């Protein structure tokens, strides 16, 4: 058990995976000498060389497309897409190619690649560098999707991602890189496809993932002081989605809210709210709440940026209204 940051845990996962499997290579803009825009691949090039830490030109579609071909050709590429916002430049290669190749070709050819990227707010990075686009991925059959909230999950989910036979989109959160956590690097099993109850509670179920796990836990602590006992579920992977854990919880608490940084309309929160409403209808005391991002672009102003996504206060207010 070691205390480490989310960033260092990710780097350790890449290091350990590359040591274990010679076919893994990391490719992307600035992953080599620069060490990654957020420092995740720092110094890996010293150990693995330019052959396995491929710096690329600024060609997002070409990089992801090349990774698709490399995966079909017997390698296990891990692509770093510097910002999730750049998906727009490469969505054909991800959504039309990587996601559909196995199915279109009748199961003959798989695409075992990992697309690492990061998203979310918190760095005053503006409208084109702060989005939460996980709904795009979740809306595309054929893609796996992991969004870790802690250093331990970052490590284990990434280690597991590079062993999978299908394309994985692995979305880190830019505001979590410096966050510390305890990691058991020796633990063999990854929590893939299994949600985790981060805080047990009796009165309401808060379903969330990525950075919002921490916001939700903070809100839960405040609500506990006011006598409301909140259960917080961290989904960890959105595809596969562990709905069993969510459903079991909601049937017990009778109330549910989904917290997501992504915009409210047609978002992950919308999908989960619909699913909870359908599957847990007979147990619900209140409508399922979507506590999600505003339907607006993210501003560079830190004040407007903060106000664009769910806050502890909004969660507390909403849950008080739902439980009073």
């Amino acid at each position, binding site marked *: 058990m070691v205390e480490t940051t989310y960033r260092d845990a990710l780097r350790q996962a890449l290091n350990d995976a590359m040591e274990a499997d010679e*076919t893994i290579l990391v490719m992307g803009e600035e992953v080599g000498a620069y060490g990654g825009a957020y420092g995740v691949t720092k110094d890996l090039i010293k150990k693995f060389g330019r052959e396995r830490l491929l710096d690329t030109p600024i060609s997002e*579609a*070409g990089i992801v*497309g090349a990774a698709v*071909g490399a995966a079909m*050709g017997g390698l296990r590429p891990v692509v770093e897409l510097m910002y999730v916002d750049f998906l727009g430049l490469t969505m054909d290669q991800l959504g039309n190619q990587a996601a559909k190749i196995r199915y279109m070709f009748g199961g003959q050819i798989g695409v075992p690649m990992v697309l690492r990227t990061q998203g979310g707010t918190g760095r005053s990075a503006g409208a084109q560098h702060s989005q939460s686009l996980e709904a795009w991925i979740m809306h595309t059959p054929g893609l796996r999707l992991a969004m870790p909230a802690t250093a331990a999950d970052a490590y284990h989910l990434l280690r597991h991602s590079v062993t999978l036979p*299908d394309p994985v989109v692995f979305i880190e959160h830019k505001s979590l890189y410096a966050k510390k956590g305890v990691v058991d690097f020796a633990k063999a099993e990854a929590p893939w496809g299994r949600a985790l109850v981060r805080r047990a509670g009796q009165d309401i179920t808060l379903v969330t993932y990525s950075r919002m796990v921490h916001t939700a836990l903070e809100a839960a602590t405040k609500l506990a002081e006011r006598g409301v006992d909140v259960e917080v579920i961290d989904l960890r992977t959105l595809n596969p989605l562990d709905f069993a854990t969510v459903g079991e919880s909601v049937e017990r608490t009778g109330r549910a809210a989904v917290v997501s940084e992504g915009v409210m309309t047609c978002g992950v929160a919308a999908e989960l709210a619909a699913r909870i409403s359908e599957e847990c209808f007979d147990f619900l005391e209140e409508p399922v709440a979507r506590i999600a991002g505003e339907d607006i672009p993210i501003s560079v102003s830190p004040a407007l940026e903060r106000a664009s996504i769910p806050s502890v206060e909004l969660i507390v207010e909403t849950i008080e209204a739902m439980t009073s």
Partner: protein
Amino acid sequence: MRDAAMISNTPLIDLYRLMRRIRTFEEHVGELYVRGLSAGSMLHLSIGEEGAAAGVCAAMKPQDNFTTHHRGHGVFLSRGADPNRMMAEIGGREVGYCSGKGGSMHIADRALGHLGANAIVGGGIPHVVGAGLASKRLKKDSIAVAFFGDGAMQQGILYESMNLAALWDLPVLFVCVNNQYGMGTRIDHATRSVDFDLRAKALCLAADMADGRDVEEVMQKAQALADGARQGKPGFLSVSCYRFYGHGRMDKSPYRSAEEEEAGRKRDPVAWARSELARRNLATTAQLDEMDAAISREMSAAIDFTSNAAQPPLSSMFRDVFAPGEPEPEPVRTRLGRVFADA
């Protein structure tokens, strides 16, 4: 058939046979479409482009990989595809190459190195960069060849891909089958820069242009570029030809004149090879007629094979979204049934 195509400097008679098979396959698959036996609302035929497919594929080795575009039947046949399974796939049948899920524009066969046809213009081009990277890293001595049309010459992904291939010294060959039309838009309405080799040279690839009517010229130029690619010097070849018929089977080409079509169809690679064989005393008319007739019988049999083949079972629908062993997506009916189980 396939072995003959693999030998460098393939004899003209074998190139002719390849091209005749493509022409006859396309004619028959067009009939399949008209008879309502094919799946998919679109069918893109490569009649007139046989020289590009046969010539380039004659310069490839058995271990080489390739991707094609939406008009790629000829390339796949040249690489040894079984016309029965190919036509069955175009007919959306279970015994087709992709179990009926891909069709004409998403056909693939790992065993023959076909990494996939593509219905997105330029979509399969970067895959050969990755396949080339894998070949280089895993020391497979294979090259990867991307086939695409002149329409893709105006797609950004081509330039990202060529740049990466040159930057990383990859065993990759880019082949533009320039049939003069991107759907209904003639090439001079799509770009002012029609000397495509210059674009590749600007990115430091070895590049050439070939006349698609002359399959031997195509083969020789492709061979030089493929040899270079195998040594880590990626290449680009633009093969000029004429798309004899419409964009799709039902397109009557109202956007071009009868005079232009007549002139274009004179650049017939199959007729050219046939006349060359006679001129060089390499085959008699009777021998060629016999060969053509045998090919016609083979392709007619492929139609029968397809029309007798079963549709894929509905149980296959949720298969292959993810790898075998992974849970299949839950059908909507099952989900709804669970929601309203008590109702």
